[in-house]
């Protein structure tokens, strides 16, 4: 293999695929990045058998071929290369790779390309196209609500439900639930799917997606899903199992409806959480007619009480929330005002942006004696 490319070409390819490299794997080849040259382009691939990423960059190919290079060293050298034309040569028999830059060169021992697993191709009719920017926002709004507990794999995933021209993303860790729905603009009304995609995968996808109005193609296989954007293929396994019936936990109606300024609530909740961290992350809310009292108390350190103006409809109430769960959602609300819907101190509270029914966040209160 013989290739001439710029530093940026290499850097882009390596940075996109490196998150799929398996850091600790009994198969040494999976700790590497496959670099393959074919007519006019260089393909970088990495996989840990759960997630696979492929990135294609245009280069000048003088001789076709491929090699698997240890990701740890390859990534570091590419980052530190000077901004000049890079000559990349690999010996097919010994897999010895020479990276030449200016008058200098770097030798790296590789592994045969045949040992690297093939990333599956999906021939499926179940294809959907969405705008990258839009999908990025959707993932941001639900991705944080997944669980980290690997003993309950279903909750480490995000449910993607496609029905009647709508796409829904749902994530929960059983203490909170984030739900986002959106119309599919490209008119694939016939497609009906319900899959659970690992939350980690979608968060990685979010990191890679550039947005800027480009399309993202989503293809569903038997137990895999593929995301395609220009130059990048992203393949993930799906989580097997039945996602719980989230509809049954979303309360219909409420007894207290509060409108509050997002920034004011965020600032107060963050200040109150300074003391809440010492205990069990509890912030208490006293909802009065024209204001809301936010308080937190740590007997050994001190206490805080803040008052912020609200517009309230319905009954006065008191409730306590885990400060982290509350702050997590306020961070992703991008409207100036937000809505809190409560039904007493023991029922889940609903949080949503103002004038937007497409996003719902459900949060279980903490019982305070």
């Amino acid at each position: 293999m013989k290739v001439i490319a710029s530093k940026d070409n290499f850097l882009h390819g390596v940075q996109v695929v490196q998150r799929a490299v398996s850091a600790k794997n009994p198969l040494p080849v999976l700790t590497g990045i496959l670099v393959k040259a074919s007519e006019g382009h260089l393909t970088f691939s990495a996989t840990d058998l759960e997630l696979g990423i492929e990135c294609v960059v245009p280069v000048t190919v003088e001789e076709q071929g491929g090699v698997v290079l240890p990701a740890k060293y390859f990534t570091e050298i590419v980052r530190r290369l000077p901004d000049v034309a890079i000559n990349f040569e690999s010996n097919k028999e010994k897999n010895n790779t020479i990276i030449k830059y200016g008058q200098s060169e770097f030798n790296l021992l590789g592994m045969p390309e045949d040992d690297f697993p093939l990333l599956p191709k999906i021939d499926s009719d179940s294809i959907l196209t969405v705008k990258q920017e839009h999908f990025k926002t959707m993932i941001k709004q639900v991705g944080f609500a997944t669980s980290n507990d690997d003993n309950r794999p279903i909750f480490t995933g995000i449910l993607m439900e496609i029905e009647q021209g709508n796409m829904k993303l749902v994530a929960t860790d059983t203490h909170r639930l984030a739900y986002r729905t959106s119309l599919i603009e490209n008119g694939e009304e016939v497609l009906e799917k319900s899959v659970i995609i690992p939350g980690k995968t979608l968060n990685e996808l979010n990191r890679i997606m550039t947005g800027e109005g480009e399309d993202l193609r989503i293809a569903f296989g038997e137990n895999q899903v593929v995301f395609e954007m220009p130059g990048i293929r992203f393949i993930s396994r799906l989580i097997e199992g039945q996602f719980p019936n989230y509809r049954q936990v979303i309360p219909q109606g409420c007894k207290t409806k509060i409108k509050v300024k997002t920034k004011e609530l965020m600032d107060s909740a963050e200040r109150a959480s300074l003391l809440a961290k010492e205990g069990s992350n509890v912030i208490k809310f006293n909802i009065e007619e024209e204001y809301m009292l936010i308080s937190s108390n740590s007997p050994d350190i001190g206490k805080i009480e803040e008052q912020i103006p609200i517009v309230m409809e319905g009954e006065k109430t008191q409730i306590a929330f885990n400060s982290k769960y509350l702050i997590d959602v306020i961070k992703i609300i991008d409207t100036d005002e937000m809505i809190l819907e409560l039904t007493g101190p023991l029922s889940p509270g609903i949080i949503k942006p103002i004038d937007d029914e497409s996003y719902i966040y459900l949060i279980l209160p903490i019982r305070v004696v």
Partner: protein
Amino acid sequence: MKQLNALLAEFEDKMKGLMQELQSLKTRAYALEDENEKLRREIMDVYQYYLKDAADPKNRQEQSQKHGFENLVRLYSEGFHICNLHFGQLRSEGDCLFCMGFLDKK
């Protein structure tokens, strides 16, 4: 004469004590009568319920469901999951949305 007066005073005190005791016994008897009446009514209600229940199997099923639901509430309040996902497992991290969703639905 003095002795007679003293005896009379003593007798009067004893009589007062006896009257008080009689009063408290009377009050107690009324309370017992009330309680007895209440228990009779309760027995009657239970008896009537069983008569109705035997005649209506649907009603019996509803009562059995109610009893089952009460058991689930008790199980949840004792710190166990009652949702179909983790039924019977210990709730180590507080309330569960799906258990509560189930309870609210009922």
